[in-house]
């Protein structure tokens, strides 16, 4: 077995045996890592809370055939405000689950890692209303699912923005929007999120546009993943 170092965000954990856990993480240079942490559930474990979901850690791991084994872990960031606030925690769970679903085992994706870390930092410091929607659009774009937002995906006309159908490829004009109508404001937000104008988008305060953008983003993610996110289904935790 070989040793390797990486920085990683802990995405999810599962109990294993008496006192171990399997931890799923997004490594900066390793892609999705799945590793065993031995004895982590014991109160005297030297890992303590370092490998709880949401932690950003510096890792030393043994490479295994199927599962790696965590040898050492040091905390880089805890995101403590997020851990202690239900609304932030709901958003963090959606971010972590979406990332866990799209990240590939052993396929390095430093850009995805940087996006997730940046989003978690913004969530921790400001918790803007538009964060979840804009994150999911950026995530989909990074994974190669960028919708067409300049012209209608049916007729190619760029005259009006009236609807949106992610499965069809993106924006729809007035004539082809049918039952899939969306507000021009929400479509503008999606477009700006995809174009990297996140700073401006995140300034949008709680309004119908925020929930519309979020719903469209979650529907698009559902099309890509072919299932809805569990953390959204149990969203009663948010209220």
């Amino acid at each position, binding site marked *: 077995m070989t040793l390797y170092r990486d920085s990683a965000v802990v995405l*999810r954990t599962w109990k294993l*045996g*008496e006192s171990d856990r399997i931890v799923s993480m997004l490594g900066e240079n390793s892609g999705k890592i799945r590793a065993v942490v031995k004895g982590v559930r014991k*109160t*005297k474990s*030297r*890992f*303590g*809370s*370092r490998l*709880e*979901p*949401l932690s950003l850690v510096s890792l030393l791991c043994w490479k295994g055939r199927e599962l790696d084994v965590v040898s050492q872990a040091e*905390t880089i960031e*805890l995101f*403590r405000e997020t*851990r*202690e*606030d*239900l609304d932030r*925690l*709901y958003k963090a*769970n959606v971010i*972590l*689950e979406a990332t*866990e679903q799209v990240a590939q085992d052993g396929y390095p994706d430093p850009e995805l890692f940087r996006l997730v870390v940046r989003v978690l930092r913004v969530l921790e410091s400001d918790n803007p209303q538009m964060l979840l929607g804009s994150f999911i659009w950026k995530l989909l774009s990074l994974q190669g699912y960028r919708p067409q937002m300049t012209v209608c995906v049916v007729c190619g006309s760029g005259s009006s923005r009236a609807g949106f159908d992610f499965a069809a490829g993106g924006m729809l004009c007035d004539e082809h929007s049918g039952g899939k109508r969306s507000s021009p404001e929400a479509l503008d937000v999606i477009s700006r999120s995809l174009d990297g104008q996140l700073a401006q988008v995140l300034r949008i305060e709680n309004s119908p546009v925020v929930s519309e953008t979020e719903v469209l983003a979650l529907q698009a993610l559902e099309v890509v993943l072919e299932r809805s996110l*569990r*953390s959204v*289904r*149990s*969203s*009663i*935790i948010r209220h």
Partner: protein
Amino acid sequence: MYTQSVQALIDELGKLPGIGPKSAQRVAFYLLKIDKTDALRLADAITLARMNSTWCRTCFNISDSETCDICLDLKRDQSTICVVEEPKDIVAIEKTREYKGLYHVLQGCLNPMDGVGPEQIRVRELLTRLGNETIKEVILCTNPNLEGEATAMYISRLLASTGISVTRIASGLPVGGDLEYADELTLGRALEGRRPVGP
């Protein structure tokens, strides 16, 4: 390969947590080798435990009757409820001999990533119980991990308007552990929860 009854035993043992096919085979052959009365005693213990055990209808702990011994014990402090995730947590707390109140077992914790919401755990039963009984304090004793903390935050939010005192079990360093190995979150909370010493 094996006789039908032995294969059935291996298959059933293989369904137990942490027992793989090879371990199931090993345990099955051990049971076939030991004295017949010892094997039957094990079978009886399983049958009795399974047939007689039920959930206490008040606190949802494991019980031999409709109401568990803890809920029936009137010497215990009837004004405090300690909320735990699993019945085995009650055993851990009872071993401390520090707590003399009642319990409520949630039978799980909120885990959004596994789709476990408040409907899947015994939160509604806790609220009903608090409405009926004269409870003055609820101690949230869920595990100090992300899911346990979320569960505690959720329940404390639900109870905010009831006037009942809601407390959370303290976080800190394990006795006998080394400070240098403590993680930042635990050590930070231990410092936050420090208390005066001396006369």
